[in-house]
Structures are given as C-alpha cells and as structure tokens.
C-alpha cells in the first residue's frame, strides 16, 4: 500500500518539477512548483516526519511561493523569453550537462543507499513526533538555531535597505543605465 502512494506522489512531484522548468509562463511554472512542494510534503509524511510536513506546507508552499507569485505579478515578467538566446551554445550544453548530472546522481544514489526496506519496530512510533524533534533542537542544536535566527534578521534588514536605495534612483539613472547597455550591445 505505501509503495503505491509513494509512486503516485513521486510521479506528481516529477511532473510538477518538469512542468515548472518547461512552462513558458512564469506564473504557470510557479504553480507547478507549488504542486511539487505539496507532493514532497506528502512524502515527508510517508517518512514519518509530520512536523516537517507541516513546515513544508506552511513555509515553502505558503510563504515562499506566494512571495514568488507576488513578485512575478509585480514585475510582469511572464513573457520575456521570446528574444533569441544570446549564447547559442548555452541551451544544448545546459541540457546535456543536466542529463549527465542526473545519470551520475542516480548512479551514486543507487550505489550509496540500501535497498532493503528500512527497519521498523517500536522505536518507529515515537520517531517522528515534534516533541523529540524539539528536544533535540533546543539542546544539541541550540547554537545553529540562534544563528538561523540572526540570518533571518539580516535578511529582513537587507530587503529593506535594497528597496530603499531602489526608490531614490531617479529617472536619469535609469536612462544612463540604458545607454551603457546599448554601448555594451554595440561592443559585443
């Protein structure tokens, strides 16, 4: 029974990922990514980690994807890929490399991990619950916990500062940048 669920969700996840990459429209790819995150959340459940299932759905799917959609809408950047690709050899080489990476990654995965079904037993019952996770988090991993806190703080300040400078830039700076861009094009 579990394997069946696993196969379905895995398929959904893969489809979501591929669709995200292939989609022309940025919004469609964002939504497909949302689908992928949902599938992965379910997989977390299968792996007995309900806390992460919740976190995945709320933080990833909820916060980050919403932010993405918001920014896509703000910039109106759905349709910017129609111009011909500047670097001709970029696309084929990219695809080729991606495929090679996939094969190598899979080969490593096959060799590294065990095929036998994971051990069960009574320890499994208390395994995934948030209490055990929290206990470990606030004792053994206290320092990293604080550091991530600081990272988040820095991120917030960063965002504020970036946007501030953005607002002061006058129209003239915009035009000047355009000119440099034209000169670069001429030179290339």
């Amino acid at each position: 029974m579990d394997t069946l669920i696993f196969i379905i969700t895995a398929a959904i996840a893969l489809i979501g990922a591929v669709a995200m990459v292939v989609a022309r429209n940025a919004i469609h790819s964002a939504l497909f990514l949302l689908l992928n995150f949902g599938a992965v959340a379910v997989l977390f459940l299968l792996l007995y980690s309900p806390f992460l299932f919740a976190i995945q759905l709320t933080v990833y799917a909820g916060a980050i994807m919403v932010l993405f959609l918001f920014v896509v809408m703000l910039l109106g950047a759905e349709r910017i890929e129609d111009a011909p690709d500047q670097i001709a050899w970029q696309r084929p080489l990219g695809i080729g490399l991606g495929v090679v990476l996939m094969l190598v990654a899979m080969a490593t995965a096959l060799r590294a991990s065990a095929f036998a079904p994971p051990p069960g037993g009574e320890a499994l019952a208390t395994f995934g619950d948030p209490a055990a996770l929290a206990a470990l988090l606030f004792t053994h991993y206290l320092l990293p916990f604080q550091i991530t806190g600081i990272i988040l703080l820095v991120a917030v300040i960063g965002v504020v500062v970036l946007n501030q400078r953005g607002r002061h830039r006058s129209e003239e700076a915009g035009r000047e940048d355009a000119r440099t861009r034209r000169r670069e094009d001429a030179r290339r």
Partner: protein
Amino acid sequence: MVPTAYYILLSAALFAIGVLGVLVRRNALVVFMSVELMLNAANLAFVAFARERLSVDGQVLVFFVITVAAAEVAVGLALLVAIFRSKRTADVDEVSVLKG
C-alpha cells in the same frame, strides 16, 4: 515499506531537473524557483536518510535548510526587484556588467 533507495533516486531526479532549470531558463524568477526545487530535493534526501537511520538529526537539518531558504528567497527577490527597477528586464543575460 518503501526502501530508502527510491526516495534518494527521486531526490536525485528532482535535483537534476532543478539544475536543468537553472541552466536552461533565462527568466531570473524561474531560475530562482529551480534553485528552490534543488533545495527541496536535498531536504527529501535528508528526511529519507533520517528515516532509515531513525535519527531525528536529519529532520532538524531540514528545518534549518527551510529557514535559510526562506531568508535567501527574500533577499533574492529584493535584489531582483532592484535590478528590474534599474534595467527594466529580468533576463539573466542582460545583467552582464560585471564582465571580466
């Protein structure tokens, strides 16, 4: 029970697709999303091994990864907005001022 190997294979596949996305797509946002996808694939692998080893450490790590990812997205998008404001485009190739 589903052997861990399947999960790891899936995670590898997702990761590779993420890389493909980064390499091929020229829209900065899609690139960003692909990066998020790669991170997600990594989380999946973490959790799979945590399950196999029955040790919660894996999951704690995933927790940290998620928070860092969130911070990263925030800053990334802010940057993207700032660039878009001055350059009127989100195409990755346009932004090549830092040429060597």
